[in-house]
């Protein structure tokens, strides 16, 4: 009997134990198998960490390796208010002067806050604020001062008498409450120099796999157009931390370094750019135009050594970017005026329809054509093709255009690159306006040769002149010379590119002969003549179009020239928008051209023209170039 009872009890106990064990087994299976993924993730969140490493943005360098834009490592100062506790006022008072922040606002940021939110299951969850940003782009030296200030922070109590908990609180407050994250600052060491070419940047928050990371992105110029190359690739590290949030190096899993962005080497020479900017700044003061631009190009290769548009802005402070400070060289489209005569005359010479010695009747300054009357600024009679260029006769150019024919004029204009983008790697380039022949009016064939009824960018007009300087070969404008890695190794090199030959050798020689007469006595730009070099060039003075009509007293004045004329090293364009104190291209832009050309020739050590070797050196200082 007893045995039976004992057996029953034992079985009951066994059953209970079995049930308990089964429950435990079920719980174990539930935790380890059924909810494994969910719980493993929760457990991993406590220790596993993923750090993202931002790449260093590449530098922008000039042709000689001088910095035009660079990235500097700085700090972003952050705080954990939960560790600050009730000492926010003390901490704010200590670090506000170092960070140059408002003390009250800083104290507000440092005050601990608890937020209550509902989770997915509808349960209320309290979250303690553990991260606030106090200051961005703080130099390393300032951060070191913040660290020193926090380390030496006192709270007016004898800490030896405090409880262990309070001592731990103060230690954490000093060591971990304020911390720094790596950040980058884009710096343009030369200020506004070449600002429209380089562009500027902005800081954006990028979401990389759920992490918000500050990233510098281009907003204008090369910074924008070559953003991908400059950017680089993010790196990451998957690792584990201990209770004190210190990384356990031995438990590192993935550790992929960020790949820095490529450095971009431009064809711009910062010394030439500086020369052009200072010369244009002087002209801006003298003639107070709305805007003034200057470009320097090597005609043989198409390399752009300088591209200036004033007024400009300081990319270090993008707030200085406002209306009118854009890159007028590529974005503004204007009627070119008489500089366009080089297109029609060179085209007519190349097609054989006109010879340099051919005579044209310039109708004493008034020429009625297709119901319109065309004017010259002076009344000329019979003139040769060469003289038409020398004196810049509108009527003569119109008659040459008529002789060339509509299709011929259109074809040569198109071949010189008008009406389409040059392919320069800058954002916002305009195509210009070159209508197809079927859209031309009857008078177009007479107007276009004098630079009306067609609209061009200043860059298009320059490289058309550079094509003439280069024996008729049009070169693609080059702004980027090469891409290189941080160690200086070349990743990609850009070579000069011939686009097409627009005019032949004979036409080149003829138009060159005519263009040499412009910057001379008797030409339209005697002020552009150089002492040691023969110059070839063309002036332009175009009335501005406003609201569909020509505005009275508002002109676009220009001079485009190259030197030494027979072996050109540089092609220079100077264009002013609404100059005061004179408006003829030769008068206002010619002297600026001369100033730039003389200083560039000296800097680049261009050998003087052999034809002018008889000149005696001027050592007395009377004719010496401007002092620096």
């Amino acid at each position: 009997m007893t045995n039976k009872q004992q057996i029953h009890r034992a079985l009951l106990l066994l059953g209970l134990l079995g049930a308990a064990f089964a429950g435990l087994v079920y719980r174990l299976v539930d935790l380890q198998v059924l909810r494994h993924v969910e719980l493993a993730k929760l457990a991993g969140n406590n220790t596993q960490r993923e750090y993202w490493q931002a790449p260093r943005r590449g530098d922008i360098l000039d042709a000689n390796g001088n910095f035009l834009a660079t990235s500097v490592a700085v700090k972003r100062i952050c705080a954990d208010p939960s560790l600050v506790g009730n000492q926010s006022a003390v901490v704010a008072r200590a670090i506000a002067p170092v960070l140059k922040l408002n003390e009250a606002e800083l104290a507000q940021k440092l005050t601990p806050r608890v937020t209550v939110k509902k989770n997915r299951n509808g349960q209320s969850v309290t979250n303690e604020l553990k991260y606030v940003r106090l200051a961005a782009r703080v130099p390393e030296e300032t951060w070191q001062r913040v660290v020193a200030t926090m380390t030496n922070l006192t709270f007016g109590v004898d800490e030896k008498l405090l409880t262990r908990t309070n001592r731990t609180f103060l230690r954490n407050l000093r060591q971990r409450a304020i911390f720094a994250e790596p950040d980058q600052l884009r710096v343009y060491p030369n200020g506004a120099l070449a600002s429209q070419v380089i562009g500027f940047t902005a800081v954006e928050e990028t979401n990389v796999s759920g992490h918000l990371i500050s990233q510098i992105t281009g907003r204008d110029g090369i910074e924008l157009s070559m953003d991908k190359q400059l950017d680089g690739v993010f790196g990451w590290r998957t690792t584990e931390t201990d209770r004190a949030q210190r990384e356990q190096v031995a438990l590192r899993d993935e550790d992929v370094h960020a790949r820095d962005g490529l450095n971009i080497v431009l064809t711009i020479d910062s010394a030439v750019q500086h020369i052009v900017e200072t010369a244009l700044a002087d002209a801006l003061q003298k003639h107070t135009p709305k805007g003034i631009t200057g470009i320097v190009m090597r005609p043989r290769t198409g390399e752009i050594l300088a591209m200036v548009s004033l007024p400009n802005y300081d990319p270090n402070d993008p707030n200085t970017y406002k209306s009118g400070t854009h890159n007028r060289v590529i974005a503004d489209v204007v009627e070119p005026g008489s500089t366009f005569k080089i297109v029609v005359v060179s085209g007519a010479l190349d097609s054989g329809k006109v010879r340099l010695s051919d005579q044209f009747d310039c109708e004493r300054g008034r020429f009625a054509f297709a119901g319109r009357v065309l004017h010259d600024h002076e009344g000329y009679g019979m003139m040769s093709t060469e003289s038409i260029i020398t004196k810049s006769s509108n009527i003569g150019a119109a008659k040459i255009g008529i002789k060339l024919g509509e299709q011929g004029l259109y074809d040569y204009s198109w071949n010189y690159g008008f009406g389409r983008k040059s392919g320069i790697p800058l954002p916002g380039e305009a195509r210009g306006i070159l209508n197809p022949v079927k859209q031309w009016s009857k008078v177009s064939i007479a107007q276009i040769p004098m630079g009306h009824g067609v609209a061009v960018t200043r860059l298009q007009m320059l490289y058309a002149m550079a094509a003439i300087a280069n024996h008729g070969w049009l070169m693609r404008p080059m702004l980027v010379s090469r891409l290189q890695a941080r160690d200086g190794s070349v990743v990609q090199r850009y070579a000069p590119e011939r686009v097409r030959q627009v005019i032949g050798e004979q036409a080149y020689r003829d138009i060159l002969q005519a263009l040499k007469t412009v910057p001379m006595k008797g030409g339209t730009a005697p002020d552009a003549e150089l002492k040691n070099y023969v110059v070839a060039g063309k002036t332009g003075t175009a009335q501005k179009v406003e609201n569909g009509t020509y505005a009275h007293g508002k002109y676009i004045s220009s001079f485009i020239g190259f030197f030494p004329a027979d072996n050109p090293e540089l092609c220079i364009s100077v264009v002013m928008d609404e100059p005061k104190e004179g408006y003829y291209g030769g008068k206002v832009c010619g002297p600026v051209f001369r100033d730039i050309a003389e200083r560039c020739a000296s800097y680049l050590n261009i050998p003087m023209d052999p034809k002018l070797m008889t000149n005696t050196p001027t050592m007395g200082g009377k004719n010496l170039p401007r002092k620096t």
Partner: protein
Amino acid sequence: MAKNRKNQAAAIRFGPALKASFLCLLIGGSALGYVWQKNEINRLGQQILEREKRLVQTQNDNKRLGDQIAILHSPVMLDRRAKELCLGLVPAQPLQVVRIAEMLVTQEKNSSRQFAQRLAIQQTP
């Protein structure tokens, strides 16, 4: 049946005791070694972290100082400085530049580089 105590394995058995002690020491030593090793890993890990931070810091400082030198050498900065100091510098005029014509060696086909160099040396006054 009584056993002869003399012939029994000793009353105090040193062999098993030694074995047990050795085993204990081994296990204890391994445990201590494991803990020491873990401590070392942790300590070296912290050292690696510190050195990594210093490396980044040094690289940043190097870049910053390199940039400063480059900026101070830039033509724009030099021009600005020259103007500040009123040094009275002027660019050289073309006629003030003395050009030395380079001796061009006409390299015949199949002639070696050494031969070309010898020619150049011979021509040097």
